[in-house]
C-alpha cells in the first residue's frame, strides 16, 4: 500500500474536537447497521472527527463468535440464493441467450459444421440458464453440494440434454471448423471463464464447479465429458458434440426436466437441513458419536461420565431377573453399547469401568420397542456400586468426587493475576471447569464450557428419551404422576421457552413456560423432564425463578404465582 504522507496524519489529528456526541442508542444502532441512511450519515460525520466515539463504536461491535454451528449452514446455503448471485445469474443468462440467438441466426444461414462448435458449449449452460432463477440456483447449488442426492439429478438432467446430442459425434472428427469460428466460440466460453480470473461475477465459478462435478459424473455416465469452462481450447473442442438444428431444440426442451428435478431435490434438501439442524442441537458429546441405533428387539445406550465425556471399554452386563442368563457387551470408542435379541422381561443392567463406580439399573424391557439406557458413571473405586432402579428415585446427586484439597498455601502462592481466588478450584487437575448457563432472549438454554467465551445451545429434548430412561428419574410411583409424565412428554416435543436456570457444579435445573422443568446431572448432556406434583395437582405455570441452595433443597416460583419446594433433590414436591 502506498504510504500516506505524515502531514496528512498530523492534520487529521489536529482537527478540532467535536461536541454533540451521539448517545449510546445511536451508536449501538450504528454499530449494528440498523440506522436509516440520514441518521447513519450524521453519526458517520461525527465519528469521522471524534476519536473517542470511534473507539466506542469499535469496542461495542458485536462479537463474531459463532453460537451454534448448525444454524449457520442454513444461511450459507440460502446465501447462494441472495440477490447479488441471482443478479449475475440473470446477466449471464441474458448474455448466453443473446449469444445463442445470434448463433441460431448464423445457423440458418451457414453450414452445419460451424454452428456445431459454438452451440454445444453454449447450449449446455443455456439449458440451465433458461430455467427460472431459483431452480437454476438450486441446480447450481446441487452441483456445489456434497450430498449425493441432488447432484446425480442435476447430472442426469444434463446427461439427458446431452444424450440426443451424442449421435452425430462422428461428424466432429471429420469436419474441421474454420479457425475463426473456433476462436470466437472459445471466446464465448472463456469470456465468462476469463471473468473469473479477474474476480468477476461469482456465477462462472459455480458453473465451472458444477460443470466439473457433472463432468466427473458424465464421464462415468456416457463417456462424453461436458465442455468445461476451464479446459484448454483444444481439449474442449475435441469433446464437443455437434447437434443439428433439430437437436438443439431437444436440448432446450430438456430444460424443464432439469427444473422439476432440481426443484424436488431442493425440497428434499430442506428436510435434510432441518434434520441436520435438530441433530446438531444435540449435546456436544453425543453429537460427535453416531446416533444410537437400537432398533426394535435391541437394548443399547451410552456410557458417559459426569462431565459428559464418553467412557469406552465399559462393560455392560445384562441379567434377566427371572431366567438367569447373562448377556454382556463392551462399549466402543464412542461409549455406545448394543445388545440385540433379548426377550421381553425384567432385567438388571450393570455398567462398570475401571476407575468408576459401578452403576446398576433395573428396567422392564419390551421387545417391540427399542430400549435406550444411558449410564452416567461417577468416578470412584470399582468396589462401590450405585444401584439405580426404575421404582426408586434417581442416581445419587453428588458431583464427581475427583476433587482436590486446595490448601491455604496454594491459595496464597498461586499467582492469581487478577483471577478470583475461588477460581483456583477450577485449576485443580482433573476438574472440568464448571459450565456456565444462561438463557438468550429467545428463551433458549445456552451453556458455555470455556468460562463464557463461547456458548452453545442446549436442547433438553435431544437425548433419546425412551420412556424407560425417563422412568429412571421419575418421581415416586404414584399412578397419577406417571400419567402426568406421559402427557407432559407428548406435549413437549418442541423445545420449551426457558425463563430460569440454576446450577450447582454439573447439576442443572432449568424451567420455563408451561411448567417445563428439566433436570440434568451431567452438566446438560442428558436431561430428564420433571413434573412436580403435589396433592393431585401438577405444576403448569411458567417457571420464572429457580433457587437451589443445595442439591437437595430447592424452590420453584411460577408466574401464577405459585411456590413449590423440594427437600429431596426433586423427587417429591410440595406446593406452598
Amino acid at each position, binding site marked *: 500500500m502506498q504510504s500516506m*504522507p505524515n502531514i496528512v*496524519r*498530523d492534520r487529521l489529528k489536529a482537527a478540532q474536537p467535536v461536541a454533540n456526541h451521539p448517545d449510546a442508542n445511536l451508536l449501538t444502532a450504528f454499530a449494528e447497521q440498523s440506522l436509516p441512511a440520514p441518521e447513519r450519515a450524521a453519526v458517520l460525520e461525527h465519528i469521522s472527527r471524534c*476519536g473517542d466515539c470511534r473507539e466506542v463504536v469499535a469496542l461495542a461491535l458485536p462479537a463474531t463468535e459463532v453460537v451454534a454451528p448448525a444454524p449457520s449452514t442454513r444461511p450459507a446455503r440460502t446465501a447462494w440464493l441472495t440477490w447479488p448471485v441471482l443478479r449475475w445469474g440473470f446477466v449471464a443468462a441474458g448474455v448466453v441467450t443473446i449469444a445463442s440467438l445470434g448463433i441460431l441466426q448464423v445457423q440458418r444461414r451457414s453450414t452445419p459444421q460451424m454452428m456445431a462448435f459454438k452451440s454445444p458449449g453454449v447450449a449446455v449452460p443455456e439449458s440451465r440458464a433458461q430455467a427460472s432463477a431459483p431452480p437454476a440456483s438450486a441446480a447450481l447449488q446441487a452441483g456445489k453440494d456434497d450430498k449425493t442426492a441432488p447432484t446425480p439429478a442435476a447430472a442426469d438432467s444434463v446427461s439427458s440434454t446431452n444424450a440426443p446430442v451424442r449421435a452425430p459425434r462422428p461428424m466432429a472428427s471429420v469436419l474441421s471448423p474454420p479457425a475463426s469460428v473456433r476462436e470466437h466460440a472459445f471466446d464465448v466460453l472463456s469470456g465468462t471463464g476469463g471473468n473469473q480470473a479477474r474476480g468477476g461475477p461469482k456465477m462462472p465459478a459455480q458453473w465451472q464447479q458444477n460443470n466439473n462435478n457433472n463432468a466427473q459424473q458424465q464421464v462415468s455416465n456416457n463417456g462424453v465429458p461436458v465442455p468445461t469452462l476451464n479446459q484448454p481450447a483444444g481439449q474442449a473442442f475435441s469433446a464437443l458434440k455437434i447437434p443439428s438444428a433439430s437437436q438443439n431444440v431437444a436440448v432446450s426442451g430438456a430444460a424443464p426436466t432439469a427444473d422439476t428435478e432440481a426443484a424436488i431435490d431442493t425440497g428434499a434438501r430442506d428436510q435434510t437441513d432441518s434434520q441436520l439442524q435438530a441433530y446438531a442441537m444435540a449435546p456436544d458429546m453425543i453429537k460427535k458419536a453416531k446416533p444410537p441405533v437400537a432398533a426394535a428387539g435391541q437394548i443399547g445406550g451410552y456410557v458417559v461420565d459426569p462431565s459428559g465425556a464418553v467412557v469406552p471399554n465399559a462393560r455392560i452386563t445384562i441379567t434377566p431377573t427371572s431366567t438367569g442368563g447373562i448377556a454382556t457387551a463392551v462399549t466402543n470408542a464412542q461409549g455406545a453399547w448394543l445388545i440385540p435379541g433379548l426377550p421381553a422381561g425384567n432385567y438388571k443392567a450393570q455398567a462398570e469401568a475401571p476407575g468408576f463406580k459401578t452403576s446398576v439399573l433395573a428396567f422392564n424391557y419390551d421387545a417391540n420397542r427399542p430400549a435406550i439406557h444411558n449410564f452416567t458413571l461417577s468416578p470412584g473405586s470399582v468396589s462401590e456400586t450405585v444401584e439405580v432402579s426404575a421404582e426408586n428415585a434417581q442416581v445419587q446427586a453428588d458431583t464427581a468426587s475427583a476433587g482436590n484439597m486446595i490448601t491455604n498455601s496454594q491459595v496464597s502462592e498461586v499467582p492469581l493475576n487478577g483471577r478470583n481466588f475461588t477460581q483456583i478450584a477450577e485449576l485443580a487437575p482433573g476438574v472440568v471447569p464448571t459450565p456456565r448457563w444462561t438463557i438468550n432472549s429467545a428463551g433458549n438454554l445456552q451453556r458455555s464450557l470455556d468460562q463464557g467465551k463461547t456458548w452453545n445451545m442446549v436442547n433438553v429434548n435431544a437425548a433419546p428419551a425412551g420412556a424407560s430412561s425417563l422412568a429412571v428419574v421419575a418421581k415416586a410411583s404414584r399412578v397419577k404422576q406417571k400419567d402426568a409424565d406421559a402427557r407432559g412428554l407428548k406435549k413437549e416435543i418442541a423445545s420449551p421457552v426457558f425463563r430460569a436456570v440454576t446450577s450447582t457444579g454439573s447439576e442443572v435445573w432449568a424451567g420455563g413456560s408451561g411448567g417445563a422443568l428439566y433436570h440434568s446431572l451431567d452438566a446438560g448432556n442428558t436431561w430428564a423432564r420433571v413434573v412436580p406434583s403435589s396433592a393431585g395437582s401438577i405444576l403448569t405455570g411458567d417457571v420464572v425463578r429457580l433457587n437451589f441452595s443445595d442439591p437437595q433443597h430447592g424452590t420453584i416460583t411460577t408466574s401464577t404465582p405459585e411456590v413449590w419446594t423440594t427437600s429431596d433433590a426433586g423427587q417429591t414436591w410440595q406446593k406452598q
Partner: protein
Amino acid sequence: MSTTKPISAVQSIVNDLLADLHTRGACDKIGLTRESFAAILCEVGTKHGATGETEIRTFFLSLRIDELALARACAAGNNSAWEIFLTRYREKLYLSALRIAREDSAARELADTLYADLYGTNTRDGQRVSKLSSYTGRGSLEGWLRTVLAQEYVNRYRRTKRLVSLDEESEEGVQFSAPDPEPLPPADARLAQATDEALAFLSAEDRTILSAYYLDGRTLAEIAHMLGVHESTISRKLDKLAKGLRKQIVANLGRRGMSRRQAEEALEVDVRDLQVNIRRTLAQDSSPPAFSEKRAEARVREGEG
C-alpha cells in the same frame, strides 16, 4: 392534562399501535401497564423527532419493543423484569466488559459500576434513577450494554492512560516522545493549509477510514466491521485515498506558489524527523551534517517507514 390540548402526531400513533406493541413487549409479565408503556413510547417517539405519520410509524415498528419494555420495567424496579434481565444479560455483561477492558480486574470494576448505574443506586431528587431508562430500543439491548460499557471505559481509562504517560515522563526526567506531542509547526505553513484543504473534501466515510487506520491504529478487519463492509473494500479505499490525497495536496501547493518538485519534496520530508535529528546530533556533540545530507537521511527513513 387538559382534554382540550391537541394530541400530538406521536401520541395518536402510539394510541393506534399500543395494543400490538404492548403484547409484543410482553408487558403484562413484567408489570408494565398500558398507560405507562404508552408514556414510554411517547417519550421515545418525541425524542426521536420524526415528523410525518409514515415516518413515525416506521420508527416505532423498527424499535426493539420487547427489549425496550424489559429495560424500562427494570428501571421502574420491577422484580420479575430484573429476574429476566439478570438471567439473560448478567454473564454477557461481564464477558463484554472483559473483551473491552481485556484485563480481569478492570473488567469486573467496569461491569460492577455499570450494574450499580443500571440498578439505580443513584438518586436524583429522591427518585431512583436507572441508566436503563435512557435505553430507547433503537439497537439491541445487548449492544446497548456494550456501548455503554465502552463509553465508560473510554471515559475512564483512556484519559487515565494519557495522564500516566505524562507523569512517567516527568519522573524519568528524560524527554521521550509522549503519545500526544504538541504538534510542531510544519516547516511550511502552506503544506498544512494544502493538506487541510484536501482533507476537507473527503467524505465522512473516507475520513473515518483514514482516522481509524492511521490515528487509532485499527486493523482493516476492524474498520470493515465498524462500517459493515468487506475488508478488501477498506484496503482498496485506503490505497485510493493515499494516491488521491498526494495528488490533491501537490495540486493545492502548486496553487500556493510551489513548484511541483518542491511540493513533492515537501510531502516526502517529515519535519519532525528533521528536528529530532538535529537534537540527537547536537546531543552527541558531533558537527551537524550538511542540510542536504539530513534531508537524504530523512528520505531514507521515510522510504523504510
